[in-house]
């Protein structure tokens, strides 16, 4: 009896919302004839908890894309394109009802940006089963060979980061490495391939320290690293841990070059430069990240649309050089172009067109913005969208690892000067 009450209360709420959704199409995405409601992309990421920065990061890219798409008049009769936020709370258990609710009540849900590594294992199957295409920001190795048809990933997976870091470490001439990684999810994926790759290239691992995140002090860990006499430190952890750790490393008088992936976190550089001094950081800083451009037509379009997103993206400037934000933008644009190319807003139809508009193909016209792509498709051409994150090349498992950049840090203007670019093929070759 009690559960009837619960079902009733649940049902009442649902029916109230379902009646405001158009037709019954909310669940399966895709619009019926004559439905001109806005098309929606959901940013399905943590907005609270330990990784609360992921949500706004993805949202910034989404809004940049939606601004671009709406400015050209929309898609297939739908004049506007919007983004909504769905908070997964950063854990798989809470993400499940969030996913179910999102699928049930969202009108014209075209796709999602996400899930992240916090909740992917529980929700990717749900979204796939509901035919909701996802441009995931999870780096989990688990998805390197996934057979989920609606799963897409245009950022490198964690194991590729490991190979990329090893490649650069070797090319920069370092022989004796210290590995200092936090003990969270993404770090678990990167360390094995980093070690494998670096030793394969002839390097030596002096010390491999996993450290607990967000401690008030790391002086002893710092001493252990120094005592191992490395010529490079490979690291990945959140801004707070990094600030504490590198501040104390600086304090201990050591200036050891670092190869990090820290720039994936918002505020990482500002937090660490506050702790250790900006010029000190600049001396040792190298960061490996998925490719993102800092100029060119794609970047310019991204930047101008991002900054024009107004109240939807507060303090938009912080995302201009954020590779995940850029990847989110590219992902939404690719989804939108796929819809146009397939002449349908039903994901079951256009999901397979994502590769057709993003992968290189003979005779395809290269386009750098949504507007260009829309025009070219209208003229009957085949297109290859090359966005802010460079040329995508989705393999048979819908992974596009893309290229890697190695950047430094210039405190004068806060820029991240480009040091080197590695192709995805180089990382694959190292894998062997």
């Amino acid at each position, binding site marked *: 009896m009690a559960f009837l009450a619960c079902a009733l209360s649940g049902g009442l709420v649902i029916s109230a919302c379902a009646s405001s959704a158009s037709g019954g199409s909310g669940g399966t995405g895709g619009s019926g004839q004559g439905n001109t409601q806005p098309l929606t992309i959901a940013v399905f990421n943590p*907005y*609270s908890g*330990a990784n*609360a*920065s992921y949500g*706004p990061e993805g949202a910034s890219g989404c809004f940049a894309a939606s601004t671009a798409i709406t400015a050209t008049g929309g898609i297939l009769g739908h004049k506007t394109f919007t983004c909504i936020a769905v908070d997964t709370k950063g854990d798989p258990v809470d993400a499940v009802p969030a996913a179910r609710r999102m699928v049930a009540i969202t009108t014209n849900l075209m796709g999602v940006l996400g899930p992240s590594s916090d909740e992917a294992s529980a929700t990717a199957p749900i979204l796939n089963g509901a035919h909701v295409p996802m441009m995931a920001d999870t780096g989990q190795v688990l998805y390197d060979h996934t057979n989920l048809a609606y799963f897409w990933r245009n950022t490198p997976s964690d194991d590729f980061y490991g190979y990329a870091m090893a490649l650069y470490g070797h090319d920069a001439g370092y022989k004796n490495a210290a590995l200092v990684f936090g*003990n969270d999810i993404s770090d678990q994926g990167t360390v094995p391939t980093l070690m494998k790759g670096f030793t394969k290239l002839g390097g030596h691992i002096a010390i491999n*320290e*996993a*450290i*607990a995140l*967000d*401690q*008030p*002090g*790391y*002086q*002893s*860990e710092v*001493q*252990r690293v120094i*005592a191992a006499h490395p010529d490079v430190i490979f690291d990945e952890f959140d*801004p*707070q841990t*990094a*600030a*504490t750790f590198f*501040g104390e490393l600086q*304090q*201990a*008088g050591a200036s050891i070059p670092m190869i990090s992936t820290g720039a994936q976190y*918002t*505020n990482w550089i*500002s*937090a*660490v430069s*506050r*702790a250790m*001094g900006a010029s*000190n950081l600049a001396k040792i800083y190298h960061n490996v990240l998925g490719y993102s451009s800092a100029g060119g037509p794609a970047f310019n379009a991204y930047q101008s649309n991002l900054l024009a997103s107004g109240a939807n993206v507060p303090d938009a400037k912080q995302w201009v050089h954020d590779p995940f934000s850029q990847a989110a933008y590219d992902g939404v644009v690719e989804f939108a172009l796929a819809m146009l190319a397939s002449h349908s807003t039903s994901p079951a139809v256009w999901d397979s067109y994502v590769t057709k508009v993003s992968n290189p193909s003979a005779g395809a016209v290269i386009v750098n913005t949504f507007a260009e792509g829309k025009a070219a498709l209208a003229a009957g051409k085949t297109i290859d969208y090359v966005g802010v994150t460079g040329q995508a090349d989705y393999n048979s498992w819908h992974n596009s690892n893309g290229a890697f950049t190695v950047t430094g840090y210039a405190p004068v203007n806060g820029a991240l000067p480009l040091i080197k670019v590695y192709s995805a093929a180089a990382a694959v070759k190292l894998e062997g």
Partner: protein
Amino acid sequence: MGTLASAIGFGLVTASILALAAVGFSLQFAVTNVLNLAFAEVMGSAGYIALLSTHAVNNIWVAMVPAAVFGALLSYGVNRLIFVPMIKRGTKLFGMVIVTVGVGLIIENVILAVAGPNFSGYALPPVHTHHIGPFQLTAPQLIIMGLAVFAMISVHLLLRHTKVGFAMRAISVSATLAEHSGIDTRRIVDLTWLISGALGGVAGVALFINVGAFTSATANEFLVVIVAAAVLGGVGDAYGAMLGALVIGLTSEIEAAYFNPQYKEVVGFVVLVIVLLARPQGIIAQVAVQREIGR
């Protein structure tokens, strides 16, 4: 030997921050018998107040003053408005713990709602390391250690050599007796909350200085260690809190130096559980002993 000395030196810094917080916590716990799990959030909110103050005056040490004042007032306010009415309604020990958890949740999430999830930090001038014997410490760390020592001595003098301190110790043994002896318990209790809040405020700023980057959740990560230090040393004794802080700070750093740094945090917690099982009155068994028997 160098590693051990360094570990001890670093342990001293962590211990100083811990001690500042633990002595405030311990003092309030002894006098009021309320296990205030919102203490760390008061610290955190004071740390954010210091951040705001640095917009007005660009010196973090000066900004500590409004932080301490805020901590004092917040603690006093929470006690007057929430804890005291609850106690008057008959809520006993465990119920009060739940109330303090509720208060802590509210404070932390108000900070989150206002400040957002991104990391913040104080803009500090670049620091130089001073080599003092086998230790390597920066000026802010030395100042923090100095503050901690100053706070210890002050609280000790307060408790041993002033009428107010005597009244506090009397209340911590038996409130009814103290009341009948003519002590204005209400005023003394208020003062206790003010002092403990102020100490917590200073400790919060010190913590944030040391970690470099912080969010609304940072301070609460420290809560259990503070309680551990206070209980280990024996609640109600200022020197006990410092001793507890030292033990925890040192064992954590030594564990990290010689064993697995991942388990650094766990060491402090295991110490607390062992103390609770073996000797709940703490190392310096004074006030807490009487309470154990009386209840």
